[in-house]
């Protein structure tokens, strides 16, 4: 494929595993210089190695998206090392399965500060940098199928992801005049470490495979290709859009 991101600089939050990792690799293999975000405790080795193998260029950048000062420093660091900033992928998120009535206020705050406030911080700070540079850009948020459907063990998570989808739309509305597009992908059941505890249960896996129109769970690379599209010029008139990539899970309501 033609490389769509040559000469561009991106960063991806939560890029050491799963969809974030696949996205960082995809963007780098299409020519972008990629800041691979990790928390202090995460190991970026695998992502960086696979980017190098693909002939791409990347560097690790440490920040916990719950910490505003760290997010500001991360954006500055990416722009300094890459020389500019064109694309932001706000992907970092957590999904601890917990019963609705056993979720503490602390649990809720951690979820919300990571998934919801973290997305807001990362996108806002990234946008400020792009506006300062004056060349436009694109932002993509990783939301979820859970922005639309509830799950007994993911009540708070669902709320944060609905918030992420709406943030992308609301931010897109104000950033259009700066030439910055903002969209979100809403992945369904994807084979990632985050979903492993769920999908390892044969019964749960069967439920998903039966209900999904394509009768299989997705691969992280299949979300990376959607995110790459949303950042690319192929999506030049897409902003404030959420792309549900659940392969026909929600739509399957047997009547």
């Amino acid at each position, binding site marked *: *494929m033609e490389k769509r991101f040559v000469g561009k600089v991106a960063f991806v939050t939560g890029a050491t595993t799963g969809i974030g990792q696949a996205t960082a690799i995809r963007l780098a293999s299409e020519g972008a210089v990629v800041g691979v975000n990790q928390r202090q405790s995460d190991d970026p080795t695998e992502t960086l190695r696979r980017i190098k193998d693909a002939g791409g260029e990347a560097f690790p950048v440490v920040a916990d998206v719950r910490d505003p000062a760290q997010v500001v420093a991360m954006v500055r660091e990416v722009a300094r090392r890459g020389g500019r900033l064109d694309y932001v992928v706000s992907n970092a998120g957590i999904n601890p399965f917990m019963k609705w009535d056993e979720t503490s206020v602390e649990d809720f705050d951690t979820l919300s500060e990571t998934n919801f406030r973290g997305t807001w911080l990362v996108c806002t700070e990234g946008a400020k940098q792009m506006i300062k540079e004056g060349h436009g850009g694109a932002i993509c948020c990783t939301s979820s199928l859970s922005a639309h459907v509830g799950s007994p063990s993911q009540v708070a998570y669902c709320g944060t992801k609905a918030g992420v989808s709406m943030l992308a739309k609301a931010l897109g509305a*104000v950033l259009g005049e700066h030439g910055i597009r903002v969209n979100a992908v809403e992945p369904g059941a994807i084979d990632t470490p985050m979903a492993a505890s769920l999908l390892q249960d044969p019964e749960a896996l069967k439920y998903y495979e039966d209900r999904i129109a394509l009768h299989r769970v997705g691969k992280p690379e299949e979300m990376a290709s959607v995110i*790459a*599209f949303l950042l690319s010029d192929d999506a030049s008139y897409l902003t404030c859009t959420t792309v549900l990539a659940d*392969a*026909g899970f929600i*739509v399957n309501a047997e009547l």
Partner: protein
Amino acid sequence: MSDKRLDGKVAIVTGSSRGIGKAIAESFAAEGAKVTVNWVGSEREAQGVVDSIKRGGGDALSVRADVSKSADVKRLVSATIDRFGRIDILVNNAGVMVAKSVLETTEDDWDRTIDVNLKGAYLCSKEVAPIMLRQEAGKIIMMSSNSGLYHPSAMRFTEYVTSKAGMNGLTKALALALGPHITVNAICPGWIKTDMIADTDPEVEQRILAETALRRWGTTDDIAGAAVFLASKEADFITGELLIVAGGRGMH
């Protein structure tokens, strides 16, 4: 890996002599697909699209067919098979719009709009589906409209909006019925500069622009980019989805 995203694929794009359909046919060809250019009233323009594709080193076929007539649709599909041997992509793009208030439209306006936009998409999908199922692969794309979702500018286009809402339902129902080998998705364009809306009131145009986050009209190429994505393997895990390509219209 080939540089071209639709290398070796065969596509039918209905209503592709001009506007969005033309841009999609040309983009598909540029990405390596062989394309059937369908038309009903504009033979010369359709031939122009075929000629431009061939000049670019691609292959294309022009077929006259009214998508609201099942006999025509059968001919459209069989002509494509006879020439190219398979069908990987169908874009249900052919559409008409009557710009009158509901009090002024006629029963014929209703029938024509529903027949071309909605029944046409149904007939074409139904005709290609068995072929795609045999191939165990296929992509169907509906050209819907964001007016089929939520839009106030739809006041004057009652039949059109209804037909597009119907296409959105058809998209989801077909996605379930035709999985796992066929994906079915819709593109919901916002205000795109084409002949269809050429005589829009300038005041309305200004209002729409003010409501659009990107502060510009969409182009037919903007839609073609989204269509290439949905037709490519890049979108393999997307089905039953309505992709809004509207420059952020209506988000303020």
